[in-house]
Structures are given as C-alpha cells and as structure tokens.
C-alpha cells in the first residue's frame, strides 16, 4: 500500500493569508478549509470584491494573478452554487482559493473584473454555463453557447443529453429510407 494521505496541517503560508484577511476585517472569513495542502477561504458574498482587492493590493499577500474562476453546482443542496477563485502570488510563490456560496434563488455575486481584468471571460463562462450573474460586469453575454440557448447546461438539473428532442437513430433511418 502506497496510499499516502497528505497531512492536512495548515501551512505557514495559509496562516499569512488568513491572518491578513482577519486583521483587515474580522467578518471577512466565514470558514477556512484545509484539504490536501490547499487552503480554501470561504467568504461572505457581500465581501468578495473587497476581499479580493485586499488580496491583490496588500503588500503582504500580493496575489497578482487570478488564474482560474469556476463554479460547482451542489444541487439539490442549498446554497447550490459554489464559486471558486484560484489566486496565485507570483512574487510570494503562493496559492489560495477564495470561495463564495450563492443560492439558486438569487445567483448574483460581484464581478471581479475591476480587480483583475482577466476575470472577464472566466465570469462570462460561468454565467453562460451556470446562470450565475455578476454585478458590475462590463459585458455579461453568453460566450460559448449561442445567444438564444435556453437553460444553463452545467447545472445539475440539466440532463447530459440536453432538453431538446433528439431524433432516435431508427427515426433517422426511417426518414432517410423514405427519401
């Protein structure tokens, strides 16, 4: 057996981020999750943009690169949407994940385009595939799907085959043999 569970001790770096955010605003951190050497900081929805700006601008943190933003749909659990922002600090060689949970009734969060312009397409992708809206986004349009597409395909209540009636192979065969 070489199954080795990575120790879930909080690293020194994680403490820096948590302490910095706590000293900036005591309400900033709802929860800190340590899993497989990754630090996830769960933020209240209202504080997302301010906390992200703090992570970028604070001289002790310097998270200058927003590497990824994505969403997880935990349907039917509420709040169902879990937005994950992966930040990298190039000067400090550190990574952190910011997480915000939003409910299915009101899937709106603040856009981070004003903090990192690179968030633009990432947020459009989440809007396109999950239907989460971003307040203050300069250009919130569908990006991968056609503009007249109905529904949000990466939601768990959207079937893998889609909603549209797809003709079966035998139907197609009948149609082609009639020609």
């Amino acid at each position, binding site marked *: *057996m*070489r*199954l*080795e*569970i*990575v120790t879930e001790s909080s690293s020194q770096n994680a403490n820096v981020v948590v302490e910095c955010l706590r000293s900036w605003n005591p309400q900033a951190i709802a929860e800190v999750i340590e*899993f*497989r050497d*990754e630090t*996830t900081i769960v933020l209240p929805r209202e504080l997302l943009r301010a906390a992200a700006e703090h992570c970028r601008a604070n001289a002790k943190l310097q998270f*200058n*690169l*927003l*590497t*990824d933003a*994505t*969403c*997880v*749909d*935990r349907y039917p659990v509420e709040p169902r949407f879990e937005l*994950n922002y*992966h930040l990298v600090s*190039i000067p400090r*060689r550190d*990574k952190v*994940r910011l997480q915000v949970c939003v409910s299915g009734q009101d899937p709106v969060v603040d856009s981070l385009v004003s903090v*990192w*312009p*690179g*968030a*633009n*397409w*990432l947020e459009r*992708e989440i809007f396109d*595939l999950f239907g989460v809206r971003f307040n203050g986004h300069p250009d919130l*349009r*569908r*990006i*991968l*799907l*056609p*503009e007249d597409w109905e529904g949000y*395909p*990466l939601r768990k209540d959207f079937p*893998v085959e889609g909603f549209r009636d797809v003709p079966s192979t035998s139907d197609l065969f009948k149609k082609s043999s009639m020609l």
Partner: protein
Amino acid sequence: MTTVDTVTGTAKTMVLNMGPQHPSTHGVLRILLELDGETVVKAVPDIGYLHTGIEKSCEDKTYSQAITLTDRIDYLNPLGNNLVYCLAVEKLLGLEVPKRAQYIRVLTVELQRISSHLVWLGTHAIDLGAMSVFLYCFREREEILKIFEMFAGQRMMTSYIRIGGVALEPPAGWRPAVRKFLNMMPSRVDEYEELLTKNPIWVRRTKDIGYISPEDAIAWSMTGPTLRAAGLAYDNRKVFPYSSYEEFNFDVPTRTESDCYARYLVRVAEIRESLKIIHQAMEKIADEGPITAEAPGIIPPQREKMKTEMEALIYHFKIFTEGFSPQPGEAFVAVESPRGELGCFVASDGSPKPLRVHFRSPSFINLQALPKLIEGQLIADVIACIGTIDIVLGEVDR
C-alpha cells in the same frame, strides 16, 4: 453569436468579419474587426464554435473513463491534458506515484511540448508567408509522433498517462528511438533559426508587433511564453513543481521586449530546454520498476495477478463496473502546458463520478487579451498576433 452591432460602426470606420473559417485563425475563431483604413480600432473575438461540452460529459463518466475526453481538449497537447487531470485526481485521492512513472511522464510531456511548439512555429511561419519552415517542422513532429505510437499505440489521442501512473511499460527499443531524436533535433532547431531569426522579412513582421506590458499581461491572467516574453519567469515547472520537475536542471527562457519576435525566441529556446529535460529523464528512468502506484481498488491489477488471486479479480471487476470513490473534497492542480498554465479543478462528492471537472485552459484565457494586442495595429499584424499567442480552438471552447 456576436452580432455586428456590438461593434460601434460609424461612417468613418468599417466592420470586417474575420473567420470563423479563416486559415490563419488556427481553427474556428471569429473576430469582428472595426477598421479605420487599415488600422484596427476595435476587435471583438467570438468563440464557441467548437464547444463540445467536455466538462459536462466528464460528470457523467467515472474518474478513469474521463481520461479519454481530456485528450480531446487540446489536440496538440493530449499528454499534458492527461497529466493535469491525473494529477488532480491523484491529489484528491492522496495517491503517490512511483518515481519511475513520474520520469516517464516528464519524458513524454516534454516530447509533447516540442511537438506542440513545432506545430506552432510551422503554422505561425506559414501565416506570415514562410512556407518551408512549416514543412521542416512537420517533418520533425512526425518523428515525435512515431515515438508516441511506440509508447501508447496512438499518435495523437494517446491516453497514455493514467491515474496512478502510466498505461504501459515503455516499449522495447524506446531508448534508441528517443536518443536518435535527441541527436537529430539540435541541428534541426538551428536550421529553423537560420531560416527565421535573422530573416529580415520575419523580423519586420514580428518585431515590435503585439506588445503587451508585463503589468497588463498579469492583470489579464496571461501565462506561458507570452508572460515569459514580457520578462516574468513564471513557469509552473519551477515555481510549483509537480511530477518531480524539481529534480531536473533546466532554465526558464525569458525576454523583455514582449513582442511577437520575443515570443518566438522564447518558444525556440524552450524547445532546447525541453531537449535538456528529455536527456535527463532518459538517464533517470530505470530499466525496471513499477509504472503504477500500488493502490488496490483504484489502479487496475496486473493481468497475471488476476489469473491467480481472487482479490485482484474482484478489484478489476469493481474498478471497471463502478469505479472508485475519492473522499469528498476539491483539488486544483496547474501544470505548464506549451501554451501556459493548464489547470484542472476536480470536485468530488464521494461518488464514483466527479461532481465537477473544470479545465483552466491557457488558450481561452490568453485569447481574451487579443484585443489588447491588436487594437491600434495594422490589419496585417492581426494574423501575427493570433499566431503569437498560440491558441488551440479545441481548448478555447472545450
């Protein structure tokens, strides 16, 4: 679809639709260009023509089945996609991969990087009018694909890297084949450089074209050769090493000019660095040793064991009927693909199928800064700028 009225058309300017079927867009990319004479005033990229819903499909497959889908994201870097997905699932499982398998992974991924850079160099040169480079690049790429065929039985969609290790033992005769390639390649890279580096047409088509400042490049989340040509030595293999990259000696080539020419020089230098890594990997790969981790219930048992041990047969049956279930949690892993930081985010809910698989594809994110590169430039330079960020549309749209 983006309609024409999203670009503000005035009497002075003209809106030109470039793509989706344009040979120099490297696939199906559509760009709406607002032109004032020959100068680009505004550019709006329109993507999604190749969207295949790979992330959704992954959610309907078991962890091992999804590997074949990852090949098809970036068809110039299938092994890199396999690697990042497997690393993410291994992180979720807390699985440690044997050193020998890690070195084999490094070897194949670096060969893949060279082949991807060769396709980039060939197509970029053909876009700018240098036909012969394309033929030379594809000649050498063919040799790499032959090596992949030896290793995996497949030239492009290899699915060679698997969860916990690699699919097959390296084939007999792999060392001479790789050595032959390593002996041949340096002089061939010199050949490309002789054709291009001091070629006045090439220099005038690429120098001072498509400039982006390092601050902007970071703000727009650009990574890979584009960021390194802007002077930042950010390379995941060095900064956050994975798969034992910390044991290899190589440099991260950087430039400061941040134009198309600098990106060309960075990529050519990366080919040479990859050759160095392959040399070292060849020495490190032992002739014998495990190629997969030992984790019953996750890694399929060997054929021989299944014939003699009941447990092995049971595990085999369980893995291929229901799969394995990592404990609930999330993992994000980033590797350095030829195009930049390739990330994979996997979330598990404790079932045998992933709750969510997301790929942070460098092409997608680098492409959004394209307007920044081309606005204010001439329309002929749009071609150079699309080529220089090295996009693969399969990866942009996923």
